[in-house]
């Protein structure tokens, strides 16, 4: 009985969170507009000074990761909002697994991020991005991206649980957005001062970005090959996912039990 109720609650929670995403038109609009503005900004304003005439080819994987950072902030705020409202008491007094509310938020988060990524890719294509078009390349890049977004969404849910208020969740998540700048997202690591170079070449975002770069452009910016990046990227995502899942479920029990 408990189990069947638990399972039937999952799609209900997902549809609730998807509806909520659509009902915040300004937030949704910003979330979709921001990546596009950033893409244009990076390619035309910052990329103008770069000697490569195809900066857009370089920057697309990095921008997608940066956008996922914005998405993470939205998710953290959504979870913190749920936790600070009366609605969580309603869910917890029902004979369902109340933590499914997190599952609903994470699924909605993944959907939002995938839509934003698709939008960035189409606009990038419109302004001259010319990736390879192998089916295997695209499937691989999509798999890496989905894995990354799922892991990051669970991390965001965890951040939303740690933060006591939506405002605090927003500031926590804001810090995440600095990470891509110190990776190979926007410029190759070799152009950085040596203090940053080592970190940028090896931090978790870099293999994720380089995997997509290898698949779409045929080469990485670090000189490492696809297998190396895909393996490292997946390992980082798996670790992040496991830690975030464990942390979130512990925090959920802990935050709501007292």
């Amino acid at each position: 009985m408990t189990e069947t109720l638990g399972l039937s609650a999952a799609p209900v929670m997902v549809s609730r969170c998807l509806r909520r995403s659509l009902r915040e038109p300004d937030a949704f609009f910003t979330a979709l507009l921001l990546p596009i503005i950033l893409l244009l900004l990076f390619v035309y304003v910052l990329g103008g000074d770069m000697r490569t005439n195809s900066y857009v080819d370089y920057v697309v994987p990095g921008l997608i990761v940066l956008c996922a950072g914005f998405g993470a902030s939205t998710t953290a705020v959504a979870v913190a909002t749920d936790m600070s409202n009366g609605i969580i008491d309603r869910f917890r007094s029902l004979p369902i697994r109340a933590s499914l509310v997190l599952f609903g938020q994470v699924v909605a988060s993944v959907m939002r991020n995938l839509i934003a990524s698709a939008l960035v890719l189409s606009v990038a294509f419109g302004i001259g991005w010319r990736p390879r078009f192998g089916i295997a390349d695209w499937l691989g890049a999509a798999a890496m991206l989905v894995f990354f977004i799922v892991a990051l969404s669970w991390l965001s849910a965890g951040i939303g649980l740690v933060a006591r208020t939506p405002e605090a969740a927003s500031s926590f998540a804001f810090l995440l957005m600095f990470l891509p700048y110190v990776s190979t997202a926007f410029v190759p690591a070799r152009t950085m001062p040596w203090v940053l170079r080592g970190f940028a070449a090896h931090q978790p975002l870099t293999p994720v970005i380089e995997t997509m770069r290898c698949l779409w452009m045929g080469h990485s910016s670090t000189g490492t090959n696809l297998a190396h990046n895909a393996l490292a990227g997946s390992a980082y995502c798996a670790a992040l996912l496991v830690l975030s899942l464990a942390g979130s479920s512990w925090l959920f029990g802990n935050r709501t039990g007292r």
Partner: protein
Amino acid sequence: MLDRADLLVEEGSVLALLGPNGAGKTTLIRILATLVRADCGRAVVAGHDVSTDPVAVRRAISLTGQHVAVDDKLTGRENLEMIARLLGLPRHRARGRAVELLGLFGLADVAGQQVGRYSGGMKRRLDLAASLVTKPRLLFLDEPTTGLDPASRVQLWAEVRAQVEEGVSVLLTTQYLEEADQLADTVVLLDRGRVVASGPTADLKARTGSMVLRLQLPDEACLTLAAQQLPLLRRDDGTLTAEVASDGSGEQVRAVLERLEERGCQVAKVVLVEPSLDHVFFSLTSTGRAEAQTRGVA
């Protein structure tokens, strides 16, 4: 912080937990509704222990907490459908039940509007409706009318009474004596985590009197005199007022006034008021008596 709070809700009846802020009412409700674990002690709801079998308890209860527990981004109908689906009703029955409840609670006109645009009273009603999607055996109402205007309050009371007639038992918390009087069969007075008194609502009323006579006195001497001559419910030295239980009759009021006037004290102003929670505490408990004096209750 609860300390030996023993209580029993009879099947099909309404028990009101009456107490000031910080008395432990909400804590008690949250323990019984399995939202928090008690550090010690035992509570059985609908035959199931709250700490060993919370899921069975949750199947028997519904909670309308102090904060409105509906989704403000969803419409009224979507909220009720969501709860119905979470409770395992199939889609078409969830929809039917939502429509039915919206009609019952006077929300049919705003069914398609986002709850964020509802008034406080409408939100409260939707919140109560959400607790009644499936008929609970025991309904918890935690200060259900706090912050509502008088008309919405009366409407909500009527809805609660209708549920009780359907056989739902209710455990209600309130700061308002009037609310307990309107709804409850039994009243339990809670103060700082302790049950200070309990009994049928009618008995409680009999002890406070139906009205309270508030006397505004001209000076300290007069207040002291009043305290000597009359069985005061309470006195306030700051505002120079004294209060006595009253039946509201002209005869009784005249007797009180004459008693003071004969001894040279002219009462400046006379008001008849409804007894409040403070009066109940005062009349029922000796600690309440001492405390009301030190607090100098307004």
